[in-house]
């Protein structure tokens, strides 16, 4: 990712730069901006589908170098949040599993035993209400015999 071009306005005490939304999602930009709101005035503009314009205005008077450094810090923070988002995406399933496991373990033991017993009671592999285990010939032989009886 290239270092984005910026415009410095010393009189306004601000630095403005644009970020491509494909590289930097809005969520990461908002999180990074939030980190800076105690030190600078942050303003966002643009289209979150294309390009976001970021304006950082110092609360205290800053020179050109300090404003450039501010932008650098902002971009570093942005990378930090990009990584966090990526890690969160990759670990989503395992986090869900851990939460589910901890919720189950927090249930009283009699509730767990009861639920597993009721499962045992409802699931019986020996029952065959749909006659899936009955061979095709047997099933249809019965029907054929019944038809013959009716015809007689």
């Amino acid at each position: 990712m290239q270092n984005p071009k910026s415009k410095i306005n010393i009189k306004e005490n601000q630095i403005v730069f644009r970020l491509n939304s494909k590289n930097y999602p809005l969520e990461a930009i908002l999180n990074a901006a939030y980190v800076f709101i105690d030190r600078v005035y942050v303003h966002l503009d643009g289209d979150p589908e294309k390009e976001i314009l970021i304006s950082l205005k110092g609360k205290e008077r800053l020179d050109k170098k300090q404003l450039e450094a501010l932008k650098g810090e902002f971009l570093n923070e942005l990378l930090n949040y990009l990584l966090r988002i990526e890690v969160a995406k990759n670990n989503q399933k395992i986090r869900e599993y851990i939460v589910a496991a901890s919720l189950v373990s927090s249930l009283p033991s009699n509730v767990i035993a009861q639920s597993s017993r009721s499962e045992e009671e409802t699931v019986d592999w020996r029952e065959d209400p749909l006659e899936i285990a009955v061979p095709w010939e047997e099933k249809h032989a019965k029907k054929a015999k019944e038809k013959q009886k009716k015809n007689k």
Partner: protein
Amino acid sequence: MKKFSKSLYSQEAIKEAVKRYKKIADLQMAEKNKYYLVKIKPKKSEHNNFLEDEFGNYVLGLRKGAR
């Protein structure tokens, strides 16, 4: 006049900020095309230089908190 892009700032956050800033400023909210517009007139003249920008930060903070 402070301009907030509709696609980046939530209306709820701006309304909430307007409510909270009423004690220290006279505020008017409007909409124009892709923007919410907020006219801020501080009640104390010593707030003139920074109240608009502080308001912007406040809205940003509310948006972050709301997610």
